[in-house]
């Protein structure tokens, strides 16, 4: 599985969706907004937001496009004829995404510390790793799920926008929701991306990490399990395959 994961990581670096959504977009957002606002407190929020956006687009959007493209080419049909278990393939792909997310996160955190003076020590980095790992698993599974529900790349585009835009807008990733209408605040509490942003913010800035982290981490773990189950149930090896049938 290591060979598969390593080969996938190499392939992902050359993937145009990954380049745009996973690398250029979060980097541009962090640097652009950071230089514009120049506020240490906002920098912490911004770094958490950029890390979360990197994960959301890298894990969900890019995975969804990648999966449907490979499925339509027939690659998955060919893989199914091999003895490789589905779970191993999905795990390798999620692992490759995680490695990529981590690599870009290191760059983002480096920019946050070096350019905007965000304080981060080894303990914080450790918790950040835990949050990114659980978040990456959940949002990659969401990407698989979107690719399973979509029939083609156009539908993937529609579905990922329908999912990611409300998640971002009601998450408080780049602005406070304290002045937002009550229904927006309620929506925020009901969606997983808010908890990812919250968990990252806690791991960057909170003095009481353990006390503040258990709720967002718990929600993220439950989200990851739910998405993984749904993604497994709806997984399709070829475009003609039916939803909710693992074989046949």
């Amino acid at each position, binding site marked *: *599985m290591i060979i598969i994961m390593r080969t996938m990581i*190499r392939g992902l670096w050359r993937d145009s969706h990954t380049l745009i959504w996973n690398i250029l977009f979060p980097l541009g957002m962090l640097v652009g907004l950071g230089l514009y606002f120049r506020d240490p407190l906002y920098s912490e929020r911004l770094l958490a937001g950029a890390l979360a956006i990197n994960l959301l687009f890298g894990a969900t959007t890019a995975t969804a496009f990648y999966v449907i493209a*490979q499925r339509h080419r027939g690659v998955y049909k*060919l893989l*199914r*004829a091999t003895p490789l278990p589905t779970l191993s393939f999905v795990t390798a792909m999620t692992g490759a995404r995680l490695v990529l997310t981590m690599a870009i996160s290191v760059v983002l955190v480096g920019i946050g510390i070096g350019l905007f003076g965000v304080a981060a020590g080894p303990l914080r980095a450790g918790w950040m790793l835990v949050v990114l790992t659980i978040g990456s698993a959940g949002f990659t599974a969401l990407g698989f799920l979107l690719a399973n529900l979509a029939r083609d790349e156009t539908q993937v585009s529609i579905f990922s926008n329908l999912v990611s835009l409300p998640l971002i807008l009601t998450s408080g990733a780049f602005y406070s929701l304290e002045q937002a209408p009550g229904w927006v605040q309620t929506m925020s509490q009901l969606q997983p991306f808010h908890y990812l942003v919250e968990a990252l913010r806690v791991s960057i800035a909170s003095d009481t990490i353990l006390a503040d982290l258990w709720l967002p981490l718990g929600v993220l773990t439950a989200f990851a399990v739910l998405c993984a189950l749904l993604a497994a149930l709806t997984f399709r090896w070829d475009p003609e395959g039916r939803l909710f049938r693992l074989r046949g």
Partner: protein
Amino acid sequence: MNQHPPPLVRAEGLHKSYGHRQAIRGIDLAIWPGETVAIIGPNGAGKSTLLDLLLGLRQPDGGKVHYSLPEPRRQIGLQLQNAPLFAGFTVLENLRMFAACYGLRCKKAELLAMLERCGLGEAAHTNAAHLSGGQQKWLAIAIALVHQPRLLFLDEPAAALDPRARRQMRSWIAELAAEGVSVVLTSHDMDEVQQVADRILLLQDGHIVAEGTAEALLATSGTSSLEDMYLKYTDTKEEVRGV
């Protein structure tokens, strides 16, 4: 007592429908060690569905497929008609990836030797998406062979190849047969079928309407070429079994 080895694959009473359309209707079939079997028939006759059922990629609505091979997925190679490859991966990476899917840790030199055999030595580090149609087909063949299978399924292997590459493909299939690999192929090229196949199955409307060696089919059908035989049986739906 004459003891034959068991067939590598035996299909019994296969049925498969998509909605109300019956794609496969009661097919019995055996693939014996070392033989090359060609499945021919019009578009939509059920050839690809039959391959999918034999490979276990789809579950039949009725009937069963039995393998005498231990761990069949490790012993079967597959080349799909559209030569699916991982986009963004080089030729070498594609081959390494599929080798790993078969549980193999191949050295670079081994993979390069395999690519060389398929005429892709110089393209090893090229993005697979940038290969010509013919080269992609050869890479798909290399992938199908990377784990040295005993049974090989080829879905229209010579389609989209130029005459020289077609000839190479035929001699390559003959080489594999000489090495004892069983080959099941689909094709619309009757010359190719006549040259490489030990046995021919003509499929129409989801069932076998003619089966036998090329010579036997010609004799039974009273035609002078496989193409005439094909036209005769796919037109009249007459059924014949030549041995």
